[in-house]
């Protein structure tokens, strides 16, 4: 156990010494990895932020049922009963035309417009929240045929579109991440291969004198993992800097909507897993590189 720890400490020290000896090359490598990882990480962050924003606006599908202006009380009562009884409906809110008008008046510039009209142009309306988007589709189609109903507007459509777009974006991000992860493994593979060739004599002599494959591999694993870690840290720094830069513009835009929305950076767990992912990729690249070398070479 003690010998094992000694060996690991020595391997880590050797890897650190190698990185320190080739500062500029190590830094450039880490930068390549960092930039490559920053793309999917940044994309993921944007998507997570947008989804959070969309969720705040409308989570549940919603439809508005506008009544004819000449609808009688009997029609309204029948409609009321029908909506209340429907199993697909989560909640119903009645918005009388007078209330709708006063809500409209509060909007900037609308008051003048309404005054010019002279009379209330708005109909009575129901705002219906459905249990799920699919259920409201069918209900909307039925409601269009009900007596007293002038128009049915399904508000679920845009939220579903947003959801679908987010789904596409997520798939695109996964593909991008997979491609760049492969590229990162290749970068590490080559860096480690170069390092192996530099140390070829030491490796060959060590094997002749009784070093196990595990002993030979160990410092390169640390080297790959360290490179992955620095690359991951650079990626996080790039994303963080981008968030700070973007947030200036975002704050301005959000203010025009009366919102204080800001892009949020990764939490601790997300940052840690991004870093861990990067370390793993470095390790895999190193593993492939050393294993292939050790297999190519006679013992």
């Amino acid at each position, binding site marked *: 156990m003690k*010998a094992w720890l000694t*060996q690991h400490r020595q391997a880590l020290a050797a890897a650190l010494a190698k990185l320190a000896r080739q500062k500029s090359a190590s830094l450039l490598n880490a930068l390549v990895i960092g930039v490559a990882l920053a793309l999917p990480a940044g994309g993921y962050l944007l998507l997570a932020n947008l989804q959070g924003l969309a969720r705040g606006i409308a989570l549940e599908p919603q439809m508005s049922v506008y009544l004819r202006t000449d609808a009688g009380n009997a029609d309204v009562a029948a409609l009321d009963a029908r909506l209340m009884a429907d199993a697909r409906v989560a909640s119903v809110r009645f918005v009388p035309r007078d209330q709708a008008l006063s809500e409209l008046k509060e909007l900037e510039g609308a008051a003048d417009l309404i005054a010019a009209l002279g009379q209330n142009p708005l109909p009575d309306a129901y705002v219906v929240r459905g249990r799920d988007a699919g259920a409201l589709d069918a209900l909307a189609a039925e409601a269009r045929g009900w007596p007293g109903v002038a128009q049915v507007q399904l508000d679920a459509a845009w939220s579903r579109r947003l959801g679908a777009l987010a789904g596409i974006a997520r798939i695109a991000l996964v593909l991008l991440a997979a491609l760049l992860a492969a590229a990162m493994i290749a970068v590490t593979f080559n860096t480690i291969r170069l390092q192996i060739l530099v140390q070829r004599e030491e490796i060959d*002599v*060590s094997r*002749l004198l*009784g*070093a196990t*494959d595990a*002993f030979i591999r160990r410092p390169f694993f640390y080297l790959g993992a360290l490179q992955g870690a620095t690359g991951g840290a650079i990626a996080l720094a790039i994303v963080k800097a981008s968030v700070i830069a973007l947030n200036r513009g975002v704050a301005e835009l959000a203010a025009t909507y009366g919102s204080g929305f800001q892009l949020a950076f990764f939490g601790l767990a997300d940052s840690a897993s991004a870093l861990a992912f990067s370390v793993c990729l470095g390790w895999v690249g190193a593993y492939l590189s050393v294993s292939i070398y050790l297999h190519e070479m006679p*013992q």
Partner: protein
Amino acid sequence: MISFSGVSKRYPGGLQALREVSLEIGDGELVFVTGHSGAGKSSLLKLVPVIERPSAGTVLVNGQNVGALGRAAIPHLRRNLGLVFQDQKLLYDRTVFDNVALPLAFTGQPPREAARRVRAALDKVGLLGREQANPVQLSGGEQQRLAIARAVVNRPAALLADEPTANLDAEAAARVLEILVAFNQVGVTTIVATHDEALARRFGRRVVRLSHGALEGA
């Protein structure tokens, strides 16, 4: 301790390096293997640490058929053998001390114990004062002695030296062989391959001669 029986070695390409060699080397024995260059001395020595495997016959080390050893077992066999190569295979990017310490790292020796062993090995080959030198700064004979120190630092049961006196002047060559004989005297089984039969005979030990891959007089 080391036994070759009916060992042949044919390299890819058809070169027949060894023909049916049978040789028994007892525990603690010293054997000089002589012969002209290309006679198969190196090939014979390479079979023991499984740098090469025999094409036919068996090589036993402590009763173990090393030609059949799996890949993973080879490093453990080699740690128990001290190898001195014709071209020394020293690492010129580190000090004399670090060259000798290399095999100790494989087994994760604590630094203090490792340093003690390195100094003891350097002392035995007369290089204790040169531990911080670079191998390049050493003479040919000193480099060969450094290689011997590295071979014995793990206290191996057997020492195999392939042409340790090649490229050395007579005095340096004699010194190197004296050191090897001294290790043998403390119980290390030793095989020394050399083309210089006259020098080998001066020690009055067992000498066998290889010719075109076959043991003479066998």
